[in-house]
């Protein structure tokens, strides 16, 4: 298994972590993620339906899902890139990149871990965001580091809107 990159401390203003003890074998929790036909069944809330177009479980692999409200017309949903896929251990994807590591317009990374325990599986999803500012304001700004850059990008967004 490749050495996992150390995660920075969780920032409560822009990250969220969800952990559950799922009383099922780790293999079946992993399979729910790794099998496109299974992922389709729980990825979106009813009555929306999901179609998993691409789920290439290797670094750089495409991760594309589409959603439909009426079961006929499917529109874009996730357009992302798999960064890490260690079977039954860890899955990382981002929508800041699309397949082949091509830069996109997204702003989040999700890290899923699967830990086997006697009662079943401890499943965790950590979702990381680049900025603390409202997503709509930052839709085109991309990732930002430091208050100065965030301030500048926010101001640029607002200037664009008022022009």
């Amino acid at each position, binding site marked *: 298994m490749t050495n996992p990159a150390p995660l920075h401390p969780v920032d409560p*203003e*822009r990250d*969220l972590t*969800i952990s*559950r003890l*799922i*009383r*099922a074998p780790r293999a*079946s*929790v992993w399979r*729910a*993620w790794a099998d496109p036909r*299974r992922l389709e*069944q*729980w*990825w979106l*809330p009813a009555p929306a339906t999901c179609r998993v177009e691409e789920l290439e479980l290797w670094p750089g692999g495409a991760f594309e899902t589409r959603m439909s409200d009426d079961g006929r017309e499917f529109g874009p949903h996730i357009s992302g890139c798999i960064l890490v896929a260690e079977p039954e251990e860890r899955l990382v994807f981002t929508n800041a990149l699309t397949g082949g590591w091509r830069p996109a317009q997204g702003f989040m990374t999700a890290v899923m871990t699967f830990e086997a325990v006697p009662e079943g599986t401890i*499943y965790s*999803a950590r*979702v990381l*965001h680049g900025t*603390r*500012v*409202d*997503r*709509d304001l930052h839709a085109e700004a991309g990732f930002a580091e430091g208050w*100065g*850059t965030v*301030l*500048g990008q*926010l*101001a*640029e967004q*607002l*200037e664009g809107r*008022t022009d």
Partner: protein
Amino acid sequence: MALPSFLKHVQVLERSGCIATRKVGRTRVCTLEPRVVVVAEDWLRRERADWEARTDRLEHFVLGELAELGQGQASDASADREDTP
């Protein structure tokens, strides 16, 4: 970032109501308006609700599969018992 650029951004933010500023001596103190903080918090809260619900669905799906598997095995076992004399 150079100070003039920074100040220009501050002006834009103040004009749009995101921050309030006041001069204290030679320092300009900027405070974030509650509206922006609430909007940001609301966004993260909505994201969390989405991911919690998604994780609920994952758990429900996995447990449902397990239950179906269990029922299948149970009915196979009872069928075997019936077959044996």
